[in-house]
């Protein structure tokens, strides 16, 4: 039997999802599948598009691989746009040829709407939809200072964040009187605006752009209908999306008045052999601009093509939960209370900066919708009430009141009915999760693999975990938190074993509490615990085989096997003589020299055998190790503070140096960074550190658990107006509690987020001593501070330890043959690809 042809136009998120469903279905063997994608790249995760600016590549975002397409016999044509459909002859046309179909699937998505403003085609005007768009924006941002996003909706704010991350001063211009008009009400919009402006994004509402012309101080000037104007170096339009229905329209398929390919409940268009799914499809007069409804359409169509008579798309939930520029925003169901008779319950805490609104049915029994701004902690619970029609408690307001005001606890996983949707992207219910567990899945990873829950937008991750944990617990399965195959314990449990039993070596620990010989996961983790507990030199013989190379050789290994050297420069303060000494050493050993992001100097390219010699010279010049290699305190960044700055109210440099000298050398589950600013202008960026200190006229405010890096998080205010002693005591305790209870490689931010009770609990423990352990924490810290030694000083003074630093123990003159160098901008660097 010859095969029929199935053609899919559009290789986006929904088209790809459809293929995944279709190829494993029964009728797949009857078809030859052809896919046409207009973009150069294979389908990728558009929802996480912005991560492209944070370093993700197409490969990270890709939804499948070319191999997957090939192995499923799919004929994939990328970079090939379909330009016409001939419905009579059942042929689609591309610039490369004609292809005949038996069934045709349109998954062409949507395109950004650009308002018809004069000058919108100028250079440096963009949209925000594809990788190509982002490449263009990135290129334009170079050399630019400001960027404007036209449109203050969900995507517009995301684009504004992206501009900010590219280092631009970002503005949002919105036509409506408030931000996110579709999802939010006036109060919610106002709070969101205030929060976003606090983050340094300027918001201009009720502004209609009339033209874009050449700028005077910047590349472009936007003029507005109220005769004002704004200059900017680039513009991103994000004024809504329009369904991509060009092909359908030209071939005479029925389309909606305002666009969109009309489909029935089976996702079939007005032509029985042509189907449409995703953002291009118009169902019941509605377009769905989210990925989850598109996936549901894809599943429906795959089932319908398999003659499943029950397959039907019946609409979708459009609730959204987002973190926009770090501000939580949630919108559920009938957020604007348009259901007749609906009543509202609002809670607006201007002090704490959050707003919650519930839309409740006339009889007060059901939740119809909700709006959350500033804090999404209640989102999961509210969504479950709304989606599953769960009866509200007698005092429904308890769902949005703060816990201290008698707020109800989150809806536990047990309260959810079997049918409750846990993951809307992949349509996974609580029942599906239970079945997966009953069929043998015994951990989160396997449930994810089996049901695909939480592999879409990721919004359901936390809920999924609680459901899985609770269902496993119910079945008597203990959830595995083992460190690795050698230790059936968490890091915290190992810490207790080590401390309580006074264990001082890895050998003792593994023989008493583990099995096998260890590995590169548990050895460094145990080394860090031993160091936190007993603070012995990391090169003590027993500890050497446990350390990562960076710790073993007390330097950071580079890609060609050489090392970098980062001496400590407490608080970033350095004398001219010390600077000269650094320069002299770097010159002598031909080390590439760079100022780091941590207010100190990094010297790159030292070979193993040069390390002790170099350190001997640095120590003679008064330097100490900077622990750039260790999971330890890195730097305490400072601003110049009251000594010089006209605004400074405290000596931030002095405090930074004191903190750095106090905590240097302390081993922790992950690296720890601190900063001290001399006033609220916050030039030391303290709120992006694990411990951030900001001067006030009465003392110091302490912020904790922030970080930059892969998942930036602003630190939370922990205590205010502390004296010097109070500040140090408080930091001591939080640090020590972190060291004792965090997981391996867990930064303070993730640790705190996973701590039951979060920051409030931490305040109880540290400020109110609710566990009665503060004296012990203080004592432990005092021990560590008093046993500090500069590891490099100890190492260079010990001939046995120095012997470790030989590239080849039998040939001291032998140079490493793979280290080849070239020169760039006046300094030496490794040759890109050594032979």
């Amino acid at each position, binding site marked *: 039997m010859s095969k029929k042809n199935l053609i899919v136009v559009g290789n986006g998120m929904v088209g790809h999802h459809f293929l995944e469903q279709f190829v494993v279905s029964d009728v797949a063997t009857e078809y030859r599948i052809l896919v046409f994608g207009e973009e150069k790249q294979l389908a990728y995760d558009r929802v996480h598009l912005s991560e492209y600016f944070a370093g993700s590549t197409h490969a990270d975002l890709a939804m499948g691989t070319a191999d997957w397409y090939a192995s499923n016999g799919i004929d994939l044509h990328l970079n090939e746009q379909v330009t016409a459909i001939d419905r009579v002859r059942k042929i689609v046309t591309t610039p490369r040829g004609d292809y005949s179909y038996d069934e045709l699937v349109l998954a062409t998505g949507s395109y950004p709407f650009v308002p018809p403003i004069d000058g919108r085609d100028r250079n440096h005007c963009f949209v925000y939809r594809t990788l190509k768009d982002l490449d263009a924006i990135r290129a334009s941002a170079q050399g630019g200072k400001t960027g404007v996003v036209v449109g203050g909706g969900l995507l517009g704010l995301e684009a504004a964040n992206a501009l900010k991350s590219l280092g631009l001063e970002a503005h949002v211009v919105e036509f409506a009187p408030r931000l996110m008009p579709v999802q939010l009400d006036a109060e919610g919009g106002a709070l969101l605006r205030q929060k976003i402006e606090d983050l340094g994004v300027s918001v201009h509402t009720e502004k209609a752009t009339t033209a874009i012309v050449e700028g005077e101080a910047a590349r472009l000037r936007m003029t507005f209908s109220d005769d004002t104007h704004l200059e900017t170096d680039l513009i991103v339009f994000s004024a809504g999306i329009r369904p991509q229905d060009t092909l359908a329209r030209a071939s005479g398929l029925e389309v909606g008045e305002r666009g969109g390919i009309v489909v029935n409940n089976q996702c079939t268009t007005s032509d029985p052999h042509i189907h449409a799914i995703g953002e291009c499809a118009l169902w019941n007069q509605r377009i769905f601009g989210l990925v989850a409804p598109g996936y549901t359409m894809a599943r429906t169509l795959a089932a319908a093509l398999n003659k499943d008579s029950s397959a039907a798309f019946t609409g979708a939930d459009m609730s959204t939960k987002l973190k926009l520029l770090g501000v939580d925003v949630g919108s559920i169901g009938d957020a604007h209370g348009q259901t007749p008779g609906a009543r509202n319950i609002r809670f607006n805490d201007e002090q704490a900066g959050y707003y919650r609104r519930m839309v409740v049915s006339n009889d007060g029994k059901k939740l119809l919708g909700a709006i959350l701004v500033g804090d999404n902690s209640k989102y999961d619970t509210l969504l479950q009430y709304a989606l599953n029609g769960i009866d509200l408690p007698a005092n429904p307001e308890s769902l949005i009141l703060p816990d201290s005001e008698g707020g109800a606890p989150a809806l536990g996983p047990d309260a959810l009915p079997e049918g409750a949707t846990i993951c809307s992207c992949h349509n996974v219910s609580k029942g599906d999760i239970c079945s997966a567990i009953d069929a043998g899945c015994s951990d989160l990873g396997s449930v994810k693999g089996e049901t695909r829950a939480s592999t879409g937008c990721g919004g359901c991750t936390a809920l999924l975990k609680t459901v899985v944990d609770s269902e496993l617990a119910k079945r008597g399965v203990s959830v595995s938190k083992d460190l690795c195959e*050698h230790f059936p314990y968490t890091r915290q449990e190992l810490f207790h074993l080590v401390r309580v039993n006074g264990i001082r070596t890895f050998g003792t620990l593994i023989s008493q509490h583990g099995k*096998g010989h260890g590995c*590169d996961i548990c050895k460094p983790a145990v080394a860090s615990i031993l160091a936190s507990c007993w603070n012995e030199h990391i090169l003590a013989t027993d500890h050497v*085989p446990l350390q990562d190379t960076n710790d073993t050789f007390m330097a950071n290994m580079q890609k060609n096997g050489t090392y970098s050297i980062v001496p400590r420069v407490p608080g970033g303060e350095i004398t001219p003589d010390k600077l000269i000494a650094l320069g002299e050493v770097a010159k002598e050993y031909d080390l590439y020299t760079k100022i780091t992001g941590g207010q100190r100097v990094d010297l790159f390219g030292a070979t193993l055998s040069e390390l002790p010699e170099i350190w001997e010279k640095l120590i003679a010049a008064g330097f100490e190790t900077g622990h750039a290699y260790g999971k330890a305190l890195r730097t305490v960044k400072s601003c110049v503070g009251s000594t010089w700055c006209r605004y400074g109210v405290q000596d931030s440099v002095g405090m930074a140096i004191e903190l750095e000298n106090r905590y240097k050398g302390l081993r922790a589950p992950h690296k720890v960074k601190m900063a001290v600013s001399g006033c609220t202008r916050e030039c030391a960026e303290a709120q992006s550190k694990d411990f951030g200190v900001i001067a006030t006229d009465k003392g110091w405010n302490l912020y904790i658990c922030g970080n930059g890096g892969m998942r930036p998080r602003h630190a939370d205010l922990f205590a205010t107006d502390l004296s010097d002693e109070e500040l140090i005591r408080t930091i001591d305790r939080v640090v020590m509690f972190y060291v004792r209870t965090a997981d391996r490689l867990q930064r303070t931010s993730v640790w705190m987020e996973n701590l039951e009770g979060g920051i409030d609990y931490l305040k109880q423990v540290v400020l109110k001593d609710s566990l009665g352990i503060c004296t012990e924490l203080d004592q432990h810290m005092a021990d560590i501070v008093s046993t500090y030694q500069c590891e490099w000083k100890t190492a260079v003074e010990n001939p046995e330890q120095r012997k470790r630093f030989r590239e080849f123990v039998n040939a001291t003159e032998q140079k490493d043959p793979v280290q080849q160098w070239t020169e760039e901008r006046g300094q030496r660097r490794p040759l890109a690809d050594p032979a």
Partner: protein
Amino acid sequence: MSNNTQQCSVCRLRDLIPGSGIAVWTPAGPVAIFYLPEQTPSMYGISHHDPFSGANVLARGITGDLKGHLVVASPIYKQHFDLRTGVCLEDENVRIPTYQVHVDGGDVLVDVPAEEDEAATA
């Protein structure tokens, strides 16, 4: 191991570090020698060259056992190499050379391909 090997004395027993590796220079290039006193045999020789990063660094990796294999983890991109066979656990198509290590008195000896073979194996 073929007959065309030569034994070279590379270092003294006390140069080795229990539980860890050192690198030595041989006519066949850089070799990593691991001394694992609790294992039999207690010494293992593999190439010091990490095929994934192209750097000579394997002696500086962490040793251990994974799913029954005695391994070292590359300090650069963390792939694991079986100390007995040289096979990479993450990618079985990658296999690095292994070398026999002996002790004679206090001397550590490594069997490497004889020099006349070098042209053929290079």
